[in-house]
């Protein structure tokens, strides 16, 4: 496929068209809204596949498929998109998740018979969000990144607030205010960065800003402004408190996209903006951030163990996992950074599967309380089995892709910060507790009487989860191609930060 074709623009425009079609659909088409949304997202997945063929995977450290057009020269911003291996991998992961979310929402929002208008609105928001997701992972212009970073709050806000649980308004408002506060602080940083940079009509291009020569103090302030926004998004301790509320109240599909994809924007921003733009400040801040990351790992895991609500539990496991990702990024070794990049993809798959399966469970029981379940293994064996696999991926069982990435992060970190790596690895033990204990409480034991007759997963629901499990197994046993995508960008990043790589002792053992 030709690399000159505007693949990324196509990937952005296609879901927008789908969203508009769903919104403005004539009455005749409305009944088919689910099929349209599914077909639309599958075509998007195919388009991503085609974009892969146009992408030179042998040179994944270089930004490819670039397009640059002037957008608002008066304020120095361009429409500039392009991806390296990491960006493309994340786009692919998102494109895989969206059709599954559509499948999972098939009977939600009061559409037991036919398609309700609410479901149609929800699906339109999902597609719109997909466009923003692609755009944010592809943005090569700081202003464009910021605009999408903020604009994507609006569909998510409506997805939580209009379609969620009993306290959805509280959760939606909390989510929005947290994100806006972080985003607006970042805005000051964006403005100041432009004024420090070369300026002019293309002054916001990331490539132009990377070379800017910043005064040390300015650089530190700018780093902090950007990092706070990304830490809230990620979410890291101590600004993570919006996530459990949002995940508890949002529909399972929304949580899948929110935690599986959107929160990656935070870590992705650290990796592709904070490090290259503010290399000195990144090295300056790394010790503090590593401590925060380790705290996130342990704190998230401990709170997950204590949760009574299934959705909140999964949200806290993610806080723990994001700690690993941030730890890997700021450990500054090629193994750890590549591991974090791979972790971002794997976490999307693993958490997506967990949220979707938990959503199916909750839909059957009508309750999110773990105490309301018990002994389901015999009643719904398929659901139990899939949940176990998804859970094992969350605790990084060897053979699943999450093991590879978590191992790389820990090994890479150990090379530079042994203490942090050792403390962080206790998070793996805690993960075993929160996953297995949860599984035990929900699925094992004597079957509860009131749960008799609970239907097992339907074909549609199996199809919504099977691709994720398959992807985790494939990437777990054959991680090579995926690692080829993320290793070269990691080397480029380290070069930009200006640190010499510390070779990991176990280098190569994960292949």
């Amino acid at each position, binding site marked *: 496929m030709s690399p000159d074709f505007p693949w990324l623009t196509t990937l952005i425009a296609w879901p927008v068209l789908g969203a508009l079609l769903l919104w403005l659909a004539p009455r005749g088409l409305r009944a088919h809204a689910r099929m349209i949304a599914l077909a639309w997202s599958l075509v998007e997945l195919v388009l991503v596949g085609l974009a892969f063929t146009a992408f030179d995977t042998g040179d994944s450290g270089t930004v490819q498929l670039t397009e640059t057009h002037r957008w608002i020269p008066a304020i120095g911003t361009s429409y500039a998109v392009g991806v390296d291996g990491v960006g493309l991998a994340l786009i692919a992961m998102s494109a895989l998740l969206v059709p599954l979310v559509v499948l999972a929402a098939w009977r939600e929002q009061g559409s037991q018979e036919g398609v309700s208008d609410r479901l149609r609105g929800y699906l339109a928001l999902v597609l719109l969000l997909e466009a923003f997701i692609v755009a944010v992972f592809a943005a090569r212009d700081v202003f464009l990144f910021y605009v999408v970073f*903020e604009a994507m709050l609006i569909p998510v806000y409506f997805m939580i607030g*209009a379609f969620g649980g009993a*306290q959805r308004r509280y959760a939606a408002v909390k989510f929005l205010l947290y994100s*806006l506060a972080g985003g607006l602080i970042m*805005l000051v940083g964006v403005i100041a960065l*432009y004024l420090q940079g070369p300026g002019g009509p293309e002054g916001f291009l990331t490539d132009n800003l990377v070379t800017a020569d910043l005064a040390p103090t300015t650089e530190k302030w700018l780093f902090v402004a950007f990092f706070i926004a990304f830490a809230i998004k990620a979410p890291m301790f101590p600004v993570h408190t919006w996530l459990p509320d949002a995940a508890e109240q949002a529909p399972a599909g929304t949580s899948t996209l929110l935690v599986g994809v959107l929160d990656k924007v935070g870590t992705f921003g650290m990796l592709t903006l904070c490090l290259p733009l503010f290399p000195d400040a990144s090295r300056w801040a790394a010790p503090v951030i590593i401590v925060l990351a380790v705290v996130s790992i342990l704190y998230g895991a401990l709170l997950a163990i204590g949760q009574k609500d299934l959705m909140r539990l999964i949200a806290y496991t993610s806080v723990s996992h994001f700690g690993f990702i941030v730890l890997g990024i700021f450990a500054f070794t090629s193994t750890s950074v590549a591991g974090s990049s791979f972790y971002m993809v794997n976490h999307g798959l693993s958490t997506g599967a967990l949220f979707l399966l938990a959503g199916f469970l909750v839909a059957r029981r009508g309750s999110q309380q773990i105490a309301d379940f018990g002994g389901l293994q015999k009643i719904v064996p398929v659901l139990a089995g899939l949940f176990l696999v998804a859970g094992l991926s969350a605790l990084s069982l060897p053979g699943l892709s999450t093991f590879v990435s978590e191992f790389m992060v820990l090994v890479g970190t150990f090379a530079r910060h042994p203490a942090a790596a050792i403390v962080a690895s206790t998070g793996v033990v805690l993960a075993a507790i929160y996953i297995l204990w949860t599984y035990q409480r929900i699925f094992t034991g004597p079957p509860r009487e009131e749960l008799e007759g609970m239907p097992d997963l339907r074909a549609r629901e199996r199809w919504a989860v099977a691709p994720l499990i398959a992807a985790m197994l494939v990437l777990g046993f054959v991680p090579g191609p995926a690692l080829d995508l993320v290793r070269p960008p990691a080397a480029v990043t380290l070069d930009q930060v200006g640190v010499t790589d510390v070779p990991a002792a176990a280098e190569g053992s994960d292949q």
Partner: protein
Amino acid sequence: MSFTQPDSIEWAAMSPVIIVLGAAVVGVLVEAFVPARARRITQLAIAFAATIGAIVAVAALWSGTRRDGGTMVLGGALVVDGPALVLQGSIAVLTILSLLVIADRTATGEDAFAPTAASVPGSDYEELARRKGLEQTEVYPLVLFAAGGMLIFPATADLLTLFVALEVLSLPLYLLTGMARRRRLLSQEASLKYFLLGAFASALLVFGIALVYGYAGTLNYGEIAAVTEDPTGLDTLLLVGAVLVLAGLLFKVGAVPFHTWTPDVYQGAPTPITGFMAACTKVAAFGALLRIYYTVVPGLQWDLDVMMWTVAIATMVVGTVVALVQTDVKRLLAYSSIAHAGFILTGIVALNPAGVSSVLFYLLVYGVATVGAFAVIWLVRERTGGSDDDDPRGSVLGEATHISQWAGLGRTHPALATAFTLFLLSFAGIPLTAGFIGKFTVFSAAVDGGAWPLALIGVLASAAAAFFYVRIIVLMFFTAPHGESDEAAAAAAADELSPEPGPAEPALVGTGVVEAGVVETGADVATPEGGVATLVAVRPVTTTTTVVPSEGFAAVAIVLCAAATILLGVFPQPVLDLIADMATFLR
């Protein structure tokens, strides 16, 4: 002081002003000579023709001004330069949009104005006039007079003209504020308050002008600037004068501590007039403030910075914080307009070319969203009973301005609620709306001009302000419209951040039912004399919230404003280019 007759008068350069003021005069004659039936249509034709004519005149002057920087007119009383033309163009555009809302009588056939403004509220005479279907078509010439004053205001080049223009634009607004059809006492109170405080501000301005004249010996901006560049003693006189002049203008833009009139006037004035006043007065007054700050007193920058920084910070903080606790949509937007005045001030304080163009752009996008938002408010009404015994058909009352009455609007009237959401997002400065580009340019000008603390406070205020905009969106889209009592809905709105579960949500979708003791004044209660508290009668009335279909005009205005808000948010480049070319003052 002596007045020399100018050698020649540049009629062409003054054409936007002359067209609008001339049309206003013709409008007065129409009232005298055209039969009552034809008056409305005639006035509408004149008003639209005049404002469109003003835009055409601005366009005709555009390229010449861009080429040679502008001209002094009337011996230096007026200046037609780039910023003046941009501001005049913005005012003309916003006036047209406002006129569309003002002209809309909605499906009820009643416009926003009292049938005869001179009648005593609640009198038999008023009721008679209402039944006869009288209309106060003087509204249109009044709007044109105000617009004419606004067109002059940012183009003034001496302090005396500044004062005259201020009065020309203010007096019609005082009148228009008092002419509401519903809640007439509230409206008249607002009018009186606006007039008294406005007179006070005018007095400050005149006194300031006198002091500046005492120091400089001239009223001309250019000559004052020349004198102040090289201060020679008596600095206090000049400084006090300049502060008073700025205070007079800060009153008009509604900056803290000169903001107290804003919420009352915004609430009391007829809603379409509120939109007009909020959008256009702000453009005109900020235009004049911009010119004075950039061309007359830059020599005093070090002394005035303290005041302007304090005012800007106080305006942003007070506007935002007080808006957080408002429960009336119009008052809420009033405080939001105060906060916006603070944001704009940060661009003015920047004192660099980027500051000028960013303020000009901000004024335009703020104005567009404001007119649109008030147009939406104009269509959201209270309706009585319907099934009541004494009122079988039900009747549409005034605007439903309590925010609890907006609950569920997103489900019952999705298009209107979406438009309002768009305007709110623009106010909040969410990317891909015009408001974001406006805020971005203003804050970057401020950071560039060394006022980064102001930008930081502005950004924090924006984050806090998002809360009350979002609160309305929550009410419109996420709250059930049916079966909630006034208290419950209000409590739900107020406790949005409290973690208790919200009220149960019935499946029915209908219009929001509000049970309350409605405080009725004016036309709705027959009382003999216009007066004070005796007029307030409380009787239990069940009102529902409804949306009256627009006659067409207001719908067009809302669509235009929404389209402009999106277009200026996504593709602002052409407009930014137009403004950037013109952002140089002729000194």
